[in-house]
């Protein structure tokens, strides 16, 4: 490694006697020897740290490896496998009489209006055991966040919460729409999404993993599967598998259709 050329300080005595010159050289040698020793120790410390960090990194990566992105089978217990069932977050009793599918993108303004109009009613119907709500988070509006992939990041956070804290997933869904960024902006940062989640009562240990985007692949594949199954845009609502064609932006129309389906 580089050996430092000695600086040539201007304040050195210019005409030393032979004797003091010799002493000075000896002192210089002693300093050089000490510098070399320190230098070697510093190098050794660096090498040891480097090895420790690399070992730690290897262990960390191995320890956090989730394997293949796992579809949310855990949150859809008892759901029968049809169509895009793999790519959905289920809320409510699996054996509820009516199944309501909502296809949504967290960047989509109409989805936010849909949530404002129907979110409370849907939550009530879930709690009453009338419906099984299946939310399909999609990410095709990634193109509307200046490359920041807001849709994917929000959907990833949503899935993370659904798996770790399923009781709060609807509250988090509402929070994401209440604070929806405008299309064409980079959207909320991961930290802002985490703050929203924490405000909804979700613990830090859950929100800390948002930036790892463990479910990004899930979202991408799910979005593709949703499109493949014939979904053309968001919000799209199915009641017992049949598209709801009424007004999505008022609460009463959807509730009436759900009640009709429940009484069938």
């Amino acid at each position, binding site marked *: 490694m580089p050996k430092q050329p000695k600086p040539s300080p201007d304040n050195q005595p210019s005409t030393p006697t032979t004797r003091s010159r010799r002493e000075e050289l000896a002192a210089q040698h002693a300093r050089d020897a000490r510098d070399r020793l320190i230098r070697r120790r510093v190098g050794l410390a660096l090498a040891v740290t480097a090895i420790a960090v690399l070992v730690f990194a290897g262990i960390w990566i191995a320890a956090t490896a989730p394997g293949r992105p796992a579809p949310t089978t855990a949150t859809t217990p008892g759901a029968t496998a049809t169509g895009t069932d793999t790519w959905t977050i289920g809320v409510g009793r699996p054996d509820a009489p009516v199944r309501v599918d909502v296809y949504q993108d967290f960047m989509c303004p109409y989805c936010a209006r849909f949530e404002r109009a129907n979110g409370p009613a849907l939550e009530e119907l879930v709690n009453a055991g009338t419906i099984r709500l299946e939310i399909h988070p999609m990410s095709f509006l990634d193109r509307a966040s200046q490359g920041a992939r807001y849709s994917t990041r929000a959907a*990833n956070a949503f899935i993370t919460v659904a798996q770790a804290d399923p009781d709060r997933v609807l509250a988090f869904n509402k929070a994401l729409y209440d604070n929806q960024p405008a299309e064409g902006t980079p959207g909320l940062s991961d930290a802002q999404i985490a703050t929203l989640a924490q405000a909804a009562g979700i613990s830090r240990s859950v929100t800390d993993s948002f930036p790892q985007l463990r479910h990004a692949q899930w979202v991408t594949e799910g979005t593709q599967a949703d499109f493949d199954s014939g979904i053309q845009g968001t919000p799209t609502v199915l009641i017992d598998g049949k598209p709801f064609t009424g007004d999505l932006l008022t609460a009463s129309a959807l509730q009436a259709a759900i009640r009709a389906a429940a009484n069938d």
Partner: protein
Amino acid sequence: MTDPAMSEPRPGHGESWLFATMLASAFLSLIASFVLSVDAVALAANPNTALSCNINATISCGTVATSWQASVFGFPNAFLGLIAEPVVITIAVASLAGVRFPRGFMLAAQTVYTLGFAFAYWLFYEAVFNIGALCPWCLLVTVSTTGVFASLTRHNIAHNNLHLPPRLNARLQTGLRWGLDRLIVGLWLLALAAFLVIRYGNALIA
């Protein structure tokens, strides 16, 4: 070479190492800037261009390249690398051949490169905390810019080019003799690596 009386030597063994490091870092940075520039042009022509480095949601230069932070001054940042790094390469090659640049010249180089260095880390910060994606070529720019900055700073402290107070500069020179610069740069890069691993973990390779 170790004779303190020789004040203007041809680059000695240590200096050769330093400028070789500078040359290699600047060269890597230039390559990365070139790739990023080509990508930026390709993306401008067709926003849906599939870039080879779009590996997954975390490692995605397309995501980074289409962010506003990627062209802060109205043109792709990478163009700045195309402009600046050849100058560094010239300085490094000339110095390896024995040229010693005047103090004022090196001070100017240090000033400009320090701005570039700060800019590189600002971009790194934005990529991690606001864009939410990493791009491999941008990381190469971050690391190689650090290499150029460290070697340039080291040279300028060793040759007292920065107009620092004499006592401060003498202390810094002692630090250089002890290899503290290596230690700082090494620990810094290790900390960066550890940070990325902890924050993104498996997402880096999955």
